[in-house]
Every structure is written in C-alpha cells, then in structure tokens.
C-alpha cells in the first residue's frame, strides 16, 4: 500500500488566516482525495484532487474556501482559507492506488482560535 505523509500534523491558527496542508505519496497514484473529520464525527469528502485540472468539489464545499492543487501524481495541497472556529477539524488526505482500497494519511488536526 502507498505511504502517505501529511504536513503539518497539527496547527493552531488565528481566525481569518489561511493554512495549507501538504500530502506527499511515495508512489504515483491515480486518485487523491481530501476529507474533513469534525470532532466526534465521521469522515466527509471535501473534494477529489485531479492532476492537471481543477478539483471536483462535493456539495457544501467551494473552491474559494478550500483551494486544492495537484501538480503531479504524488503530491497535493489543501488550503483552508479565511478560517473560523467552525473549521476546527481533522483534515485527511486519501489515495486509491489502483485497487479499490483507499488509504489515509495521519491527518492534520487544525484548531482555529
């Protein structure tokens, strides 16, 4: 299975600022995804990061708030923009490496104060 590294592992940010989360995979993967896990909740898909084109966002998530880049088949970033306390969550990068199984990074625990 692919090894996924996410940075930072955690951060505390001031409201109104932005944070960029990085996801690096040790092999080329076809599909990369970004999820949010709010406190005590399950995982919600934010968007599919498409290599070489704009990300595909799920209902309730917009590009202005969560811009995503995917410059190649091993790397993606998610930015959480103009943060408010409601954005405090764990953000997770996920990949599907050719089979149907999805593998996850360790997550970024974000606290907005």
């Amino acid at each position, binding site marked *: *299975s692919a090894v*996924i590294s*996410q940075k930072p592992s955690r951060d505390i940010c001031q409201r109104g600022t932005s944070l960029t989360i990085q996801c690096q995979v040790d092999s080329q993967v076809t599909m990369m*995804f970004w999820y949010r896990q709010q406190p005590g*909740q*399950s*995982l*919600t*898909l934010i968007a*599919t990061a498409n290599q070489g084109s704009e990300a595909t966002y*799920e209902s309730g998530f917009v590009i202005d708030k969560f811009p995503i880049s995917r410059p190649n088949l091993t790397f993606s970033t998610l930015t959480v923009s103009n943060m408010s306390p409601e954005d405090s969550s764990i953000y*997770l990068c996920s990949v599907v490496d050719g*089979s*149907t*199984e*999805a*593998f*996850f*990074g*360790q*997550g970024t*625990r974000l606290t907005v104060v």
Partner: protein
Amino acid sequence: EDQVTQSPEALRLQEGESSSLNCSYTVSGLRGLFWYRQDPGKGPEFLFTLYSAGEEKEKERLKATLTKKESFLHITAPKPEDSATYLCAVRGAQKLVFGQGTRLTINP
C-alpha cells in the same frame, strides 16, 4: 443516495469477551465495503474490503462478513489493544461514504 449506519455507537467489553459490530448500508451498485480502524489523533487504517454477499475475511482477532444489506465485524477474544473506533464505508458509483463509527473499548 448511498447511506451507511453503524451500531452500536459505543461498545465496552471485557478482555476476552467476543462481540460483533454492525454496518447497515444502502448503495447503488456496490463496488466494495470497507472496514477501517481509527486510533485517536490518527488517520484511518485499512482493515478489509468485501465485494459480494457471502464473502468473509479474517485478520487476527477480526472477521468481517457481508450480506446484501449489512456487514458485521466480529471480534473474538479481544485485547485492550483492540480499543479503537471502527469505521465502515461503502463505494457505489463514485465516492466512499462512511458511517459514524463504533467506538470500541476493551477493559483489561
């Protein structure tokens, strides 16, 4: 719309006390049912994929089974290190849909 419901929300067992976790689902065209383990502060760890009714998979003290409407994660003679949240997810036409998870605590 694809949906996943897990029960119970939380389960507390004594070490060695076997039990089962339930995952009920509705999906258009099942392309896989997945079980994950999640420890506090960490990302989900992949456990099993099941594709068709009647399929079973085992790993150490865990066994996952699948019917057309639900999946069970059986845990046999659990140990304290099995304490975690267990997540079930289904893949239909496109995305993975997760259940709320079952928080399992094994007391020594």
